């Protein structure tokens, strides 16, 4: 028994080495892709709500403008969540005793606010300001997607810093005429880049400072 290992030990040894290397590489790859996966970022994951509010119905169906409910979107960092009153302006007439709307009616009666599940939720150290984006020609759909086609609202973008930077470094790819900001069906024209550059001047977009840390972090 001079031979310490059987013949196949060599094969095993090589297999272990190669396997180990592959495993490690694979693991890194997985973590990388997992971190960007829809599962992790909750992209395309409709959030259950106490009241199953459908943007599809209200926007596409009834043609209600974004600003009817999100009143402060042009004036404030916060787009504004409609107070119960706003819902009841219509729903005191239509669907006035639909069971799905019971929570809304309760809310108004007992003065207890509705509690929605956040769909777009940035970390507390990120200071996003709706007004400046809207006023400079970034369409709602650019970040929120075709809300008018969502029965239940969902995220369409990971909202990662890298993603923000893409636009902050080259806004010309996404700028629209301010008149088109709230247009859900807006199609990017073929000459977008040229148009974008034109809009940068026209709508005074200070591109230089857009990738400063302090633009979003304080």
């Amino acid at each position, binding site marked *: 028994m001079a031979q310490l290992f059987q013949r196949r030990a060599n094969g095993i040894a090589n297999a272990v080495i190669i396997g180990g290397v592959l495993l490690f590489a694979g693991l*890194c790859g997985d*973590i*990388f892709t997992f*971190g960007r996966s829809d*599962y*992790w970022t*909750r992209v395309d994951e409709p*959030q259950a709500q106490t009241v199953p509010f459908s943007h599809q119905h209200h926007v596409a169906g009834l043609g209600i403008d974004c600003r009817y409910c999100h*009143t*402060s979107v*042009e*004036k*404030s*960092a*916060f787009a*504004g*969540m*409609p*107070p*119960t*009153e706003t819902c009841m302006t219509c729903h005191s007439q239509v669907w006035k005793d639909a069971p799905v709307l019971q929570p809304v009616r309760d*809310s*108004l009666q007992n*003065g*207890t*606010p*509705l*509690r*929605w*599940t*956040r769909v777009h*939720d940035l*970390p*507390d*150290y990120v*200071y996003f*300001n709706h*007004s*400046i984006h809207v*006023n*400079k020609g970034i369409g709602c759909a650019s970040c929120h997607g075709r809300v008018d086609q969502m029965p239940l609202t969902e995220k369409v973008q990971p909202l*990662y*810093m890298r993603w923000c930077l893409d636009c902050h470094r080259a806004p010309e790819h996404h700028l629209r005429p301010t008149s088109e900001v709230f247009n859900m069906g807006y199609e990017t024209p073929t000459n977008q880049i040229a148009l974008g550059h034109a809009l940068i001047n026209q*709508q*005074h977009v*200070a591109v*230089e*400072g857009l990738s*400063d*840390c*302090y*633009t979003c*972090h*304080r």
Partner: protein
Amino acid sequence: MNQQPWRSLDEFADTPEFREWLHREFPPFASEWPNDVNRRHFLKLMGASFALAGLGLSGCTRQPLEKIVPYVKQPEELVPGNALYFATALTLGGYARGVLVESHEGRPTKIEGNPEHPASLGASDVFMQAEILNLYDPDRSKSVLHGNEVTTWDDLLAVVAAERAKWTANAGTGLRLLTGYVTSPTLLDQIAALLKQFPAATWHAHEPLAPLHATTFYDLAKADVIVSIGNDFLGPGPAQLKYTRDFASRRRATNEAANFNRLYVAESTPTNTGARADHRFALAPQALRDFGLAIAKGNAHPKSSATVLDDLRKHAGKSLILVGDSLPDELHQFARAWNQPLQIAQTTVSNVKSFAELIRDIEGGKVETLIILDGNPAYDAPTDFEFAKKLAGVPLRIRLGLHEDETSALCQWHIPAAHPLETWSDARAFDGTATIMQPLIEPLYDGKSVHELLAALTGNVLTSGYEIVRRFWQVQHPDDDFEKFWRRSLHDGVVAETANPFQVLPAVSPNAKPEVEKPANGAVELLFLADPHIQDGRFANNAWLQELPKPFTKLTWDNAALISPATARRLNLANEDVVELKFRGRSVRAPIWILPGQADDCVTVHLGYGRTKAGNVGNNLGFNAYALRTAAAPWGGSGLEIVKTGEHHPLATTQQHQSMEGRDLIRVSTLAEFAKSPEVIAHLGEAPPTASESLYPTVKYSGHAWGMAIDLGACVGCNVCSIACQAENNIPVVGKEEVARGREMHWIRVDNYFHGSPETPRIHFQPVPCMHCENAPCELVCPVAATVHSSEGLNQMIYNRCVGTRYCSNNCPYKVRRFNFLEYDRNKFENAPVLKLLRNPDVTVRTRGVMEKCTYCVQRINRTRIDAENQNRSIRDGEIVPACAQACPGQAIVFGDINDPQSRVSRLKASPLNYDLLAELNTRPRTTYLAKLQNPNPELKEP
């Protein structure tokens, strides 16, 4: 950490009612409400992050789903996410200072001065800034107490009703009302009504720091020569802000016609005023009195006073003599006469009965019912009155107060007072200008206002503060445009045409005239002063003020017995030695602090410490100097005995070294020198290397380039910049132990240096924020690019990228960076849930392990920029004002765009007074300083 004291509150804060109320009051905020789940998640995150290397994500689970809670009914004027500002007023010792309060979704978060208000002029003092913390103070009393029983306002009303029946029978015999200094027209009216109803009742007033004589106010801007004899007019007081503004206006060499005033100060212990003197005489109280009398009597002794007198005479009519409270009346009378031409307002003793008389009545068993409105006599009354003991002899004792404090503890009934920001009221400024105070928020702990209590006492049908105040003013303005008047007054924060220079305001009459002292030779003298930050003790439970370094000593969280270096040597005492102070049969134990510029053989003690029922923050700090204070000697006197105990009491100071070591940190020259050759400033220190000396090309900043200039000539070292910054930027309080370890968090500190001999030092202040160096040494060494430059030249500090190597702080020559060594956000000063409401939503709350520093208030820069961009216009000069600059009464701090040659800051930086701190390091700081100029009397050699 020390959770115990907060337990009850935590429970309270976790009750469904509280949450529910919170959601109702502050919907967008509700989602940020910290609960245990989050806290646990934070810890889990900590452990798991190790496993999760490789991801730019935090947390071991997916981002938790949060709720967003809209209003049910959204208030008219409110735009969610944008702040609203309301004008009101705050009082200090009764006098009003107008304020503008910033409110986010119904939470007041920041207090600024009201530019329309004569006592504020847009600036603020440390107490105004700190008041917002008092509002949210978790230790405030939360319910009506009968004995220790929690009861209700209605129960009390029942008792009052029963009493009223008695009073109507006996005309109010035995009814006594005790207040502090009152200027509120409505309250005065109510009190008058009460006394009218019950003629036998009497009203007594008590202010521990009340002057013993009429107080007058003058126009400093017009004075060419000012002589202060123990009067710290630039220090805390009803007119501090106006005085500072006026004084500074005569200290700017930047505008062509520099017409400096000249300030002589004789005082026993260094004050902000003394620090700004062109000639300062450190004199013990006796000597100080002699100095004053020498001037008053016009006999030229000692030598120095003669010169001063000459200078005064030369400028008769344009000169002022300001005399301190502790000095005899004859001196005050002389001064009032001399100052007549420049007088702008006066308050004199009115018919209010004194506290001493109340004591006598109690002794005589004449008092049946005592109603104490605010104030805290059980703690701050002259000790020889033995008020606490005698109070027990009063059958019915009712107390209205913010805290269940020493006095409440001795009363059967305690009523939680509503905070000034929670109530309708009114108050007058030093010059009589009235302000109608409006509430910013519903009472957090259903407190009651004085008006509501008096209404109850007078059986008034109007019971809500709003109605009471409004009715009072309606009576003053019967004409039909009242609605307009009312709205305008509320909007402006001042009631038009109420200022009246010759108006007589009710003042507090003295407890007793102090006996005239004859100098006891060799004996050490004792001097009482209000603590510079917690005053007579009323701010003891305010952590911001406790941690704010006191001028000169830079002590926090403590008071000390201040003595001069020479005296210390003579008595062989060192800092932190505990001594027994024996004064006229009474004694306290106090730690020693040696203070250059203190008069020899004079011990100064600050009142306001040693409280036992202030709250969890203020209890058992320092020693109670009131224990030595008698009605006969309210400001101290000679014959103090100092006995060394051999014990040691550690004190926490933020500046251990107060010599400049011959470095050109603060450049000082004289007006004459500067007039002769403006280059004198440049020659005082190193010049920055020229660009050609650098290996690297200098970066060009197109667009805006933010910069700051700090005029040392206009700085009086009032510290308000530090605390304003703290309020604006969610800066945590760290506590005495951490301060002692050198971990205080103030983003802008006011350095204080003594220059020259320890006996007669020159004293200099220097506010030091981040310099925002263009060649920032800190940025170069950060391994993760957590601190880098913005396109506008800001030295950005990104908390959420910081890994906490602290290399940047090491490499910062100005040491302006602050580090979260522990989870300060959850320490015993910060973790009370209610304090979360105080947070500025525009500034990140920093977690443990990250560096932070002055950002030039980037949240304000961004807000202004976005507003301007939204309106497609450019930012106007002066439109962006950092918190420190906005608060500064001397307008010493100027911020703006240095790329715009017309901006104020550019023009200041162009002045020959302008210099870089540590210029030789070539950091190219964006924050620069304007040298300080003195205006000494050529005939009087140093000091």
